[in-house]
């Protein structure tokens, strides 16, 4: 410790307006706290932003992906393991950008890339149809996830899901997932 140069960090962040930035174990309690920070951001401005519910849901789906799927884990006192990662929400006068990053087993990458490619090629009607198919499909094997998250993110954001992967070692990559949501301010 003692190596952190906060001024450099501050300067790096100044180019964007940050709604929030968090790095660490994304436990359910942290998630609730971050959601409240986000809620405060939306209650600060005078005009209501109709995109707020979309920002909330994309944020929660992405953050819960980190919680469940990050290859870097912290063991909580309760014995459960929580994924570590980074969650960043930025804004400018037109859009919100919601991003998460976390370590993942390299061999899981192709499946995630294929799924995003498939989802990004679908139009709105196609996404709705695919969502409904997955919603009705029984859970597969031992999985407790209906794998609706990415489809929902694409539907809510109305934009493509961007992936960026950086290989860390022969087993792990760092995966960065992001999307943008257009602001819909009432009264301009």
């Amino acid at each position, binding site marked *: 410790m003692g190596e952190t140069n906060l001024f450099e960090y501050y300067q790096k962040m100044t180019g964007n307006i940050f709604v929030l930035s968090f790095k660490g174990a994304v436990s359910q309690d942290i998630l*609730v706290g971050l959601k409240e920070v986000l809620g405060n951001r939306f209650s600060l401005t005078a005009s209501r932003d109709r995109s707020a519910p979309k920002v909330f*849901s994309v944020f*929660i789906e992405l953050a*819960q992906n980190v919680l469940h799927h990050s290859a870097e884990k912290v063991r909580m006192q309760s014995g459960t393991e929580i994924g570590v990662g980074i969650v960043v929400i930025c804004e400018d006068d037109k859009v919100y950008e919601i991003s998460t990053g976390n370590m993942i087993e390299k061999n899981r990458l192709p499946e995630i890339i294929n799924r995003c490619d498939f989802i990004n090629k679908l139009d709105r009607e196609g996404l709705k149809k695919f969502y*409904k198919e997955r*919603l009705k499909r029984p859970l597969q094997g031992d999985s*407790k996830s209906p794998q609706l998250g990415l489809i929902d993110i694409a539907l809510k954001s109305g934009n493509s899901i961007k992936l960026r992967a950086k290989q860390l070692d022969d087993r792990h990559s760092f995966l960065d997932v992001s999307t943008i949501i257009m602001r819909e301010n009432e009264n301009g």
Partner: protein
Amino acid sequence: MDNLRIAKTKYTVGVHFDAESGILELEGSSYPENAFDFYQPIARWIESYISETKRPIIFSLRLQYMNTSSSKCLLDLLLILERHLKSGKEVVVSWHYQKDDEDSLEAGEEYSHDTELQFKFIAN
């Protein structure tokens, strides 16, 4: 049969299932860490309830934000209730939503298309 009551939290719905009146109510937001684990006992309660009751059931939903896993679990609860309907019993789903919340109304309409249950949409 015992009633099922689970207090609402910031990220799990409040559950008020009344065996005597047949009014089964869910209320709040739902984005637990593991939705499947949260909803499993709720699904079990409904299954055993419909196996012994002949009462009409009112499934009353006042839902706010739901994550995708919770949405899946809710459909599964509706499909259990659909079995009750198909065995000749009465089931009505009351979908309560805020007057200007079109997304919530749309979500309810989607569920009504996905099942044969009768939905009543109530704007608050």
